[in-house]
């Protein structure tokens, strides 16, 4: 999966999971300027974290768990994690 598609998957998941914290300004900066957002700034509650992880799994087939989000802490780290897991999967298939 290309990096841009992974970023879009994270974007869509944030629109569902972060709701109020992922406001218009952050959406614009995330998409247009490629900024790295800290999850702590996004006002995600426990339900939001679950919804975020569900959306990521549905769109990328990569399983991230709510408990991992605190450790990952940022959108760049989440994208990197997804890339690595997809890479491992590709390697294992070879």
């Amino acid at each position, binding site marked *: 999966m290309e990096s841009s598609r992974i970023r879009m998957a994270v974007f869509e998941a944030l629109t*569902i999971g972060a*709701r109020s914290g992922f406001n218009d300004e952050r959406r614009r900066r995330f998409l247009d300027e490629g900024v790295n957002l800290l999850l702590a700034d996004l006002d995600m*509650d426990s*339900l*939001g974290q679950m*919804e975020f992880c569900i959306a990521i*799994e549905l769109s990328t087939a990569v*399983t991230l768990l709510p408990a991992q989000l605190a450790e990952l802490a940022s959108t760049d780290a989440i994208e990197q994690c997804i890339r690595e897991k997809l890479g491992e999967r590709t390697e294992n298939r070879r």
Partner: protein
Amino acid sequence: MTAAVSALTEPGAADGASSPMQRMDRALRLYRRRISRCRTQNQLNRVNIAVENYVTPAEVRYFHTALAGEPAESPAYQWITRLARGMPNNIVRPVEFERRGLCKGVTHYSANPSSAAQKTLIIGFTGIAHRLMMPTPWVLDCLNPALYDVVLLRDFARVAYASGIPGLGGDFHTALSKLSTHLDRGAYRDAISFGTSAGGVPAILAAILLSLDKAIAISPQEFGRVAALLGRHGLSDTAYASLLASRPQPFPEVLIVCAAEHGDDMAAAASLQRRVPARVLKVRGCAGHVVLGWQHAHGMLPPFLAKILGQSLERQAPASTALAASWVVGSSGGPSPQPTVARTQDHPEPDPSHAS
């Protein structure tokens, strides 16, 4: 709703051809079947979240009893235990809410449809998570089913209901007009729209459109954000803007509730108040968007709901806000008789369009 549990939540759950116990048993069997297919925690969470969005307090108790024999470490046991323990009152009532799907996007919770004249109808506009900021049974558990009917609307397209409601119509006006044919609003003692987050502005619009008595918007988005959302989906905001600017008489009482320590939500509330005659109730000490969840976590959900609804959740007699709140606090068995729901600031402002 997710497709994973559509059979649990589909229209016509209370079909009249079976007893409540049979229907709850059928729901439980479906739930067990669904979770047996889950291979990841996210799949399991997806099923549980969807079920939490639909079930009644009676169903929670039924599931809790049935799943009590599961190992304590099993996800199903842990989930239902958390859900059951979170019920604010956990009262077994003489009559209980039953769930009936009117169509895909509409669930009707009622105990006895023949006594509408005694009841308040609450039309709930759920937010993006398809719930009123918390599991549906927690909200229902606060309400006496003899006095309230609840209709929950869900916006699967997540465009502030502008593309309508599945089964009712493809735009807001059509969907709500069709909803009126399912519900005899005039038969009820009063009718209130109640929207959370992305459902906040639609709740205000619905109260204006359907001539409801009151609209309550909890942490609503500002209208500009709603308009931008519609724009991104190629939808016009003209109908919404016109409706919000209209002043039919009698105009519904509009109450906007937001966290006093949440900057974006405070700004959104102030912005909405400039567009529509409304009172703003700021919840002091609350910094989160999920105001109802905050009240629930502080053990104050029932008195807070009584305060914003402006009436008792348990008694028939019409009462002023202050009386309703103090009665509920006084009868809740809580440690303090202080009406802590009063830790709010009320900000009435005249309609700006009438100010000149």
